[in-house]
């Protein structure tokens, strides 16, 4: 059955967005789009392209260019070809940051998305009753990482003023009070915990939306067949909410890879560089030691890591688009 023609432009746009491939081209053709209109389109795009060029393309090219120079402080740059990259991968401190970054990224993603996903499924059993709860969890996502970092410093403080140690002592285990951020064995774990706290909100919302998108008929059929809530979660909600989970994983991975603020505030990459990620290494080399070329090389490596994760995800997410 064909759709009746509409006279409304809005309806045309809505219809155009719902069409795919040849259908869209056909619509464009019927509305009089011609190749000769391209200059106007490009003209209208100029402001965006200029801003994009200034804010993204130029810094990107400049960073890549700097990575081929040896720059120390305010001294004159010296062209070193791939020297910074060779030095980078021979640097034990940088190699250590790769391991730390991988651990931090995977752990915060697993914890944030895992908790967010489970909470989303639980909330979906009583969506209205859990609105306030979801808003509270999500609000943590809106708190600046630096501010959250100072809050976590108060929680992890090693002395009697530290909230965590106080609670541990209150429950009768004063022997378990510990300088969590000062111990090389616990600092990264504490950091992951703190970073994950703020990271739960977004996966919760994405997964919740995904669970809500499951057709009611499927859930009703499961109830009528006598499925228990746990079975519904395991066999229906979990598999059918995977698209939302994949987006949440993608966003969390990218965020964790680039993490800096909370590390800067909580541990400063220490103790003994045990919590130093590539993002923090980049800052240390570029800003505190002002080795801009070396820091730029680390930035390019981080960019490549982000691209390795992003490109397959973007291809997968946009596979249906023409």
């Amino acid at each position: 059955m064909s759709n009746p023609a509409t006279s409304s432009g809005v309806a045309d746009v809505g219809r155009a967005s719902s069409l795919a491939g040849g259908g869209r081209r056909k619509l464009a053709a019927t509305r009089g789009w011609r190749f000769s209109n391209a200059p106007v389109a490009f003209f209208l795009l100029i402001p965006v392209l200029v801003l994009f060029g200034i804010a993204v393309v130029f810094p990107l090219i400049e960073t890549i260019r700097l990575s081929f120079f040896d720059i120390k402080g305010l001294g004159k740059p010296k062209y070193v070809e791939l020297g910074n990259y060779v030095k980078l991968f021979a640097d034990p401190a940088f190699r250590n940051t790769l391991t730390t970054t991988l651990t931090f990224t995977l752990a915060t993603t697993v914890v944030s998305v895992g908790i967010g996903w489970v909470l989303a499924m639980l909330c979906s059993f009583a969506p209205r009753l859990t609105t306030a709860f979801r808003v509270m969890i999500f609000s943590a996502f809106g708190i600046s990482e630096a501010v959250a970092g100072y809050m976590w410093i108060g929680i992890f403080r090693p002395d009697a003023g530290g909230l965590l140690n106080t609670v541990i002592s209150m429950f009768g285990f004063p022997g378990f009070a510990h300088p969590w951020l000062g111990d090389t064995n616990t600092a990264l774990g504490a950091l992951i915990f703190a970073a994950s706290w703020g990271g739960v909100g977004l996966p919760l919302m994405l997964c919740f939306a995904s669970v809500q998108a499951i057709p009611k008929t499927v859930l009703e059929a499961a109830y009528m067949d006598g499925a228990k809530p746990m079975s519904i979660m395991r066999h229906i909600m979990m598999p059918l909410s995977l698209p939302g989970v994949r987006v949440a994983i993608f966003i969390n991975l990218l965020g964790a890879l680039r993490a800096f603020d909370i590390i800067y505030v909580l541990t400063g990459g220490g103790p003994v560089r045990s919590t130093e990620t590539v993002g923090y290494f980049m800052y240390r080399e570029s800003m505190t030691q002002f080795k801009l070329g070396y820091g730029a090389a680390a930035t390019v490596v981080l960019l490549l890591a982000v691209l390795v994760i992003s490109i397959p995800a973007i291809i997968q997410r946009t596979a249906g688009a023409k």
Partner: protein
Amino acid sequence: MTTTSGIASGIRRRSLMAAVSIAALLSFAPAALAQDLSGELVILQWQGGTDAEMWKKVEDAFIASHPGVTIRELNITAQGDARGGIRTAILGGEVVDIIINTWPAFRAELADAGVLRPIDEQWASFGWDQKLSQSWKDLGAIGGVTYGLTYTYGDRSGIWYKTSHMEKAGIEPPKTWEEFLASFDKLKAAGYATPVAVGAKYWSHAEWFESLLLRTAGVETAAKLAAHEIPWTDEAVKTTLKKFAEMLAAGCCGDPATMFANDWDGAADLVFKAETANYLLIGMWNNARARNDYGLTEGVDYGLFQFPTLGMGHDDTSSVDTKELNATANGANPAVADAFLDYIVGAEAANIMAGYGYASPSSAADSSLLGPVQQTATAAVAQSKVQFVLGDLLPGDLVDEYRVQLQKFLQDPSDANIDAVTAAIEAKAAESY
């Protein structure tokens, strides 16, 4: 009708009047110039807290005496080392007249990059020799050219304590290394868990190494180490770390995790707020913190004693830090910048600083305005051979490695690890100079 001779006479008279007028003007030139100072003075400022408050007061007083001048601060926000922010501002094209600086190595970097202008002419014309001794001039010089004008200095070999802790433990501030080590048990017996608060999160654990190095090997060795004229594997460095290890073995500081969990301010809290620790080796800025943040009375509630004597022939040494002003080569208002430099070593600015507990090297300063603790520190420095704090003399990438390796030493102060730690610093030093 005017005759030729009359004209000539008139010209001579006018010439004479003009000459007299010029001479009169010239004779009043300095005063006239001082009154005519005008325009905006831009100061690159990175200090915070009480330091920033004091600095504002100094600026206000300068403006009050030069009504035609306005001051604009270019504020750099930084946690810890502000050099990154200063470099970014300069490379970003910011034009300032004066930079506040506390790192001699950074001054050299700025001078090499052509950012600074020499101030030797000003030193002579303003007569700063009358206010500052030659040693302060030398401190601000690179290769015989003066770039830095020191306006305050601090003792970095003074150990802070709370009077009530000493009284409770029944001890006096220790004078010798043996007394110092022996005091740990007495303080612990009095109920204090950790006699020495070491904030090893970033850099302040190096304070102990640096004063110990001076007392073990003297200022010449420390200077050579800073310039990498001797290697970090030198016996002097190892002996210093072994002395540090004695302190750790005597139970000074708790476990490494506790030390790594705090920076210097957290360590100060342990002594003055939580009262679980007793000794703190940190710079004179703690004086303002103790008075303002903890509400303590200087010389009554808390005190300062100079680093204990080791008996190794170098007990007359102290580590110091300074703050100086650098004039820039591209500043828009060099005349006002010079006047501000002159003002900062004058009596008015020195006395404002004294009110905040900061010592001025200027002879124009009234030292009686300093509090009792600051007077103790000032006297100690005056009687010492001084060496600038080592960390601020090292190249940026080396100082980072140096601090991390000292953290590794705190984790394991064994002789074998001392060898490993010194070798690691030396390896970095080999590529840093």
